[in-house]
């Protein structure tokens, strides 16, 4: 692996890690259900970009595109179902705060 490709990959790796860190932080810190979903989306986007960069470096764009399309399909399904769950929670509790979801606790 020559120097320029390594440099290219590591620049992207640093920024992708920053993106993933923002997503993790969002999921850990937030108390709003919709914002937790946004954090999940940011994590998903970091993974997608990593796929694309690696596919470009190794020259396997075809395989990577198939993987990315599968990832996007799964992402949409997760968002739709999680959005439905969030709306059901809102109908029941009139709130989106995760601290109000402790009815089953204890």
């Amino acid at each position, binding site marked *: 692996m020559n120097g320029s490709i390594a440099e290219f990959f590591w620049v992207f790796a640093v920024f992708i890690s*920053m993106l993933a*860190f923002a997503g993790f932080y969002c999921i850990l810190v937030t108390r709003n259900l919709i914002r937790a979903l*946004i954090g999940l989306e940011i994590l998903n986007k970091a993974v997608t970009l990593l796929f694309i960069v690696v596919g*470009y470096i190794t020259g396997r764009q*075809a*395989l990577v595109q198939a993987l990315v399309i599968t990832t996007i399909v799964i992402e949409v399904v*997760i*968002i739709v179902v999680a959005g439905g769950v969030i709306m059901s929670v809102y109908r029941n509790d009139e709130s989106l705060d995760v601290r109000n979801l402790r009815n089953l606790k204890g």
Partner: protein
Amino acid sequence: MTNLDLILLILMVVAAVWAVMARSLLKAAIGLAIVSIVITIFMFEFSSPLAAVFELSVCSGLITVIFLSTIGLTRPLSHKELLALARDRGRRYGFLPLLVIACGAVLAFLLLKMPLDLEVAKNTIVAGAREVLWNARHLDLFGQIMILLAGVFGAVLLFRENSTDEW
């Protein structure tokens, strides 16, 4: 690696941090769409046009619409509640830009100090994206169909009317 790439990467991280920190959820959804658009540009640049079209239409189109409708169907916080939460929010989210920059700086420093030696073999088989997508996959297509069905049934189950409760 051009300067434009670097600017786009910085824009992407700033939009992600904005999506996490924005007070209004609508602005957060728009920040997410900006991240998605930047990733689409990278996909076109790295010769993955099929994935780029999917990302542009689905991730920055459909998912933004789903987010906006979810936000619209739930009641946002009132101004008074927002003010009460403002100090708490500042305490919780204020460190995020610093932490993200610190994370990037530490990683960049580590990689400059001790670069990992990656062996990357160039692939000799060059197949078209369509061929891989439709001919090179067998069982995982069933998995994908199952996931789509799970999504459809999940949505049907969640949005069922109350009158058909018992079954």
